[in-house]
């Protein structure tokens, strides 16, 4: 249990949800805290703290999971080139995209595409939003922290 959300004002939560919805709707765009805070109508410091308390992850990490989820869906379901996917899903360069995806999933974009095709199945009657949420990468720690742990050879050790 995270506990904290039940003590947050529902009116504030509703406004934080609006910022989360906006990221969901356009995850390829830049979402600095200043912009998100404006959507929610709160100060920047208040926004970052409240968002994490409400949704369990900092806003920039939430955005990252949405970008990766979209990128993986495009790798899986389309023939769009990997470079195009990188730019369409909000990365400034192909290198950053590839590195982040590798850090999170352990695979290169090309390998993810090949594996997904091997396992391809019909989407059936599950609404796409639910399907995409089910395939969202679960980022419990920051990507930078994950990188640091791998680099330091302490992957999997306790926190």
């Amino acid at each position: 249990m995270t506990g904290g959300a039940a003590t947050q004002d529902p009116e504030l939560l509703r406004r934080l949800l609006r910022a989360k919805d906006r990221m969901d709707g356009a995850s390829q765009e830049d979402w600095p805290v200043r912009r998100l805070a404006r959507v929610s109508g709160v100060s920047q410091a208040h926004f970052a703290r409240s968002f994490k308390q409400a949704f369990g992850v900092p806003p920039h990490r939430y955005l990252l999971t949405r970008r990766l989820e979209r990128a993986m869906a495009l790798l899986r379901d389309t023939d769009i080139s990997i470079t195009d996917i990188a730019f369409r899903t909000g990365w400034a360069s192909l290198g950053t995209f590839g590195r982040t995806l590798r850090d999170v999933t352990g695979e290169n974009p090309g390998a993810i595409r090949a594996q997904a095709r091997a396992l391809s199945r019909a989407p059936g009657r599950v609404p796409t939003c639910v399907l995409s949420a089910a395939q969202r990468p679960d980022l419990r720690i920051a990507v930078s922290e994950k990188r640091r742990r791998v680099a330091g050879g302490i992957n999997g050790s306790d926190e």
Partner: protein
Amino acid sequence: MSQGIEVIGLYVRDQDEALAFYVEKLGFRVHTDVRNGDYRWLTVQHPDQPSFQLGLFAPGPPVHDAATAQTLRAIVAKGAMPPLVLTVDNCRSAYDRMRARGVEFTQEPTERFGNVDAGFRDPSGNGWKMMEARRL
């Protein structure tokens, strides 16, 4: 009288606000609106679906203690309740109509897998997917 599900309820933060939203913006009709003290049983209905009622219920006494009601209001407000799906004949025209009435859309009509869908929320935070009925 056939058998089946008759009522499924949503939690809403304010029943008057929810009633206005579902009736005026979505075109539902009031089915039942009765009070007993603080308690209000309020259900609405899609005009094409007379055997089903959508309950618009407010967390609070006498059903919930204050802490439980607060938790439920928080869960709804952060969009953590299960998704709802509305089927329409034409997603893009429904989107235009509803948007003109002030519905908060979270996703514009998008074509996926040969079907068009959009997303919106009610004022409380309940999330709806609006899908075009498949023509078979």
